């Protein structure tokens, strides 16, 4: 499963801090990170906090990753300016909503603007097309961020996550 594969990549890259805002699509990955004694999972009250967390961690020499849903990307825009100005490395893994088969119209505006917003703030966007491509894409994102001091986001398509209704979301 792709959440296990992402967790293996994070562990191999020596990720020590995992900032997250709970999301159905990230449920399994969050559980894996919480159970990993080498990682500290930090629940955030808003995604914006995760940018400060990642920047502070890097000042202290620790690698981190940030997990959020596409709606959260709208909450981090100004903070991404600091990432760019300071050349902080940043890896954000975004579970997409508002894409193929979305059932909640309120998710569509931010979901459709996610890539544009990230790119406008200088973040490199990777979007694996299938479940098999997710872990290699996360691997590449980690290397690009931490070897080249870049801000990189991996967008996990809604089609791969497979949430099609409120009932599916509740059952995740």
């Amino acid at each position, binding site marked *: 499963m792709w959440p296990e594969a992402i967790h293996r990549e994070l562990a191999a890259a020596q990720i*020590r801090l995992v900032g997250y805002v709970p999301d159905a699509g990230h449920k399994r990955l969050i559980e894996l990170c919480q159970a990993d004694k080498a990682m500290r999972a930090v629940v955030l009250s808003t995604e914006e906090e995760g940018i*400060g967390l990642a920047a*502070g*961690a*890097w000042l202290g020499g620790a690698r981190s990753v940030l997990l959020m849903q596409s709606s959260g990307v709208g909450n981090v825009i*100004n903070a991404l300016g600091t990432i760019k100005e*300071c050349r902080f490395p940043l890896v954000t893994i975004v579970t997409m909503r508002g894409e193929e088969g979305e059932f909640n119209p309120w998710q569509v505006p931010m979901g459709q603007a996610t890539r544009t917003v990230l790119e406008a703030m200088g973040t490199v966007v990777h979007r694996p097309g299938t479940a098999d491509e997710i872990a290699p894409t996360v691997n590449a994102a980690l290397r690009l961020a931490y070897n080249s001091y870049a801000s990189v986001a991996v967008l996990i398509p809604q089609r791969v996550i497979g949430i099609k209704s409120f009932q599916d979301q509740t059952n995740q």
Partner: protein
Amino acid sequence: MTRVSTRNRRDAVKQLLENRGELLVIAGLGSTAWDITAAGDSPLSFPLWGAMGQAAMMGLGLALAQPRRRVLVITGDGEMLMGLGSLATIGVQQPPNLSIVVIDNERYGETGMQTTHTAHGIDLDAVARGCGLRICPFENLREAIHEQPGPNFAAIKVQAEKIPLVLPPREGALLKARFRRALLGPDADSV
């Protein structure tokens, strides 16, 4: 509701940073960044020029990454108000090496001295207490920053006054690189 204070912010910050030793310092944008610079610029200070609302979270990230070092966030009331949720996040993590000091002049100093919420009775100490942080009086604050298990918090009322700017280096990448080299040594460039 305003409590009149005669405390001068520059004196207060200077007192807190006296003989700071290995203390790591993050300062919120605006007046507190100028305050820590007036007290003496250091590579182990990271003064923010933007990212309003993020100072406390940068302190948390740093404190978790460096559990053996003491970390101090000095920020303003307006900056803290923009990131109140971060106090709840810090309260969950309970980092013992983190202290947050708000220099509270009840004003947005960089935009024309408009009043902040604290001028209207909003009590940051009470918010922080409710989030599980330890409230410290100013008299014991320097000692708490260096020794008391945290997370520690203090909102220090100061005079609302316009004072001369004392500016730290401006470039973000430079501030980041000098901080990491001073803290991590030569390894900073290869990890």
